[in-house]
């Protein structure tokens, strides 16, 4: 058997990570966990980009560049997310998703 790493393994790993992220997104009640799930989804994208960059585009490595931008933006997004969670925690003393139901029709 050939155990050399090929592109498919990385793509499957990324897809699995992405699905774990989506599962966490819809099943978590704690807002911080939801935020972490979103980070998982973004990291799945990073794995994808890096794998493609390594196997398909080793000359220009545009994927690696893209990943740097994704990491940076994800950090900004997490910072804003935590700030909003902090603001809501100060007002409501909870970070349970199911208690945030003021806005409903």
């Amino acid at each position, binding site marked *: 058997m050939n155990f050399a790493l090929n592109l498919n393994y990385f*793509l499957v790993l*990324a897809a699995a990570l*992405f699905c774990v*992220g*989506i599962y966490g*997104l819809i099943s978590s009640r704690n*807002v911080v966990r*939801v*935020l972490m799930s*979103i980070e998982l*989804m*973004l990291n*799945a*994208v990073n794995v*994808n*980009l890096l*794998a*493609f*960059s390594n196997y*398909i*585009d080793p*000359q*220009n490595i*545009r*994927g690696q*560049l*893209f990943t740097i*931008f*994704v990491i940076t*933006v994800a950090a*900004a*997004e997490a910072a*804003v*997310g935590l700030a*909003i*969670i902090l*603001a*809501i925690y100060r*007002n*409501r003393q909870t970070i349970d998703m199911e208690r*945030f139901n*003021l*806005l*409903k*029709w």
Partner: protein
Amino acid sequence: MEVLSTADLIESLNLGLLAPEYIVTGTLIILLLVDLIWGRPVANKLPWIGLLGLGLASLALIPIWSVSNTDSFLGAFTGDPLGLLFRGIILISAAVTILMSERYIYQSGTAPAEFFVILLTATLGGMLLSGSSEMVMIFVALETLSIASYLLSGYTKLDVRSNEAALKYLLLGAASSAIFLYGMSLLYGLSGGETKLTEIAPKIATMGFPSILALVLVIAGISFKLAAVPFHQWTPDVYQGAPTPVVGFLSVGSKAAGFALAIRFMTSAFPDFATQWHTIFAVLGILSMILGNVVAIAQTSMKRMLAYSSIAQAGYVMIGLAIGTPDGYASMIYYMLIYLFMNMGAFLGVVLFGLKTGTDEISAYAGLYQKDPFLTLCLSLCLFSLAGFPPLAGFFGKLYLFWAGIQAGAYTLVFVGLVTSVASIYYYVRVVKLMVVKEPSEVVQKYTPTDWTLPGMRSLQIGLVFTLVNTVALGLASPILNFTKDSIQNTPILTTAPLAKAEKNAP
């Protein structure tokens, strides 16, 4: 690889095309510095600095019009007429948002400088998004717009509703941008390492299922920005909870950026999958028109009703995208321009009423005519225009959209559009009838005449008159439609893609 000298490199970047963006960036830095140095005493000057910057940026759009080489930053940014029009729409919507937010911020006691800076950041993101044609650029511009929008919708941080709106917007927005990114990472791999949209297109043309998967993921990400059903769940919550001026910007500026992105991404990266994405957008459009208009009928909050109405309006605009003819694109832009004024006008009315009474319940508007005929007139005209009554601008906008639809043979779409427009008349006119016919509600009985000399009220008045005049006059100004048609003709990505032009798709 040839080595360029520094001068050649700078020359090849074609920096001039982003002049409006530089001005917006400069303005937001100046705003920050002015606030830092002089602080509170100059707080009432800040909106005018912002407006001046936006005005200059709009003027800077004009010379770019006739530029022949539209590639900037080595193809990452395209300054074609399509992008220019959308950048103009976003600039105007930001300007009107500043006009309506001055008094709102003053009364809510929050810091004005940061608000305008974040608003200008969102504007910058939207403008860059309208022109980006390379995936890294698209992602960064999209996130600039999104993160600024999250901050704006949570701006009144002591208000629990605003917190909740911001949180929901952030979580759903981040998730949808992750899905969008996943689609883009697949495109990067499928195209063999290309990130420019126009270079992706020929490489993925022959790949079947994987490309369709990427297409679907990308459309899911974009549809979130457009608030198309079924990616609309955040819209009513965010619109109800966020500060009203912000909602005005989200419903027009952010949506316009989304449509610019949709047109550019679809026509330049997926010209060979035109049938598929036409069908997807047709389905999204039909669902948006039906759900938006039907659920709006049941609303009791004015802001929530306008949220569903904006979902429906986005559905009408999607007709243009789903048929994918030059006329369709032209009428989309024309409708976005009209929608900018009529929707902003409606939100200006809601802001004014909310500031004076502190509520946005529809029932509170009863009998407003007896106390404030001017506000009633503004709101009524804007709502009539949204419903599509002739001779207001909204009627002509819809007329051209539906006409483009019929010419392209998309009878189902136009039929759904017509039927749901008729249904929409009910909930728009209900508000007008309530204001004019009914006895004053308790809230309105305590209503005092508006004092336009209070701080920030003058800009609100200017905004109301400005949007009102445009809502009435824009429909009668047919040069604007011809102008949008010309600009579509001059946009290479929309005219060189033969498939997109010849496709006739009537689902």
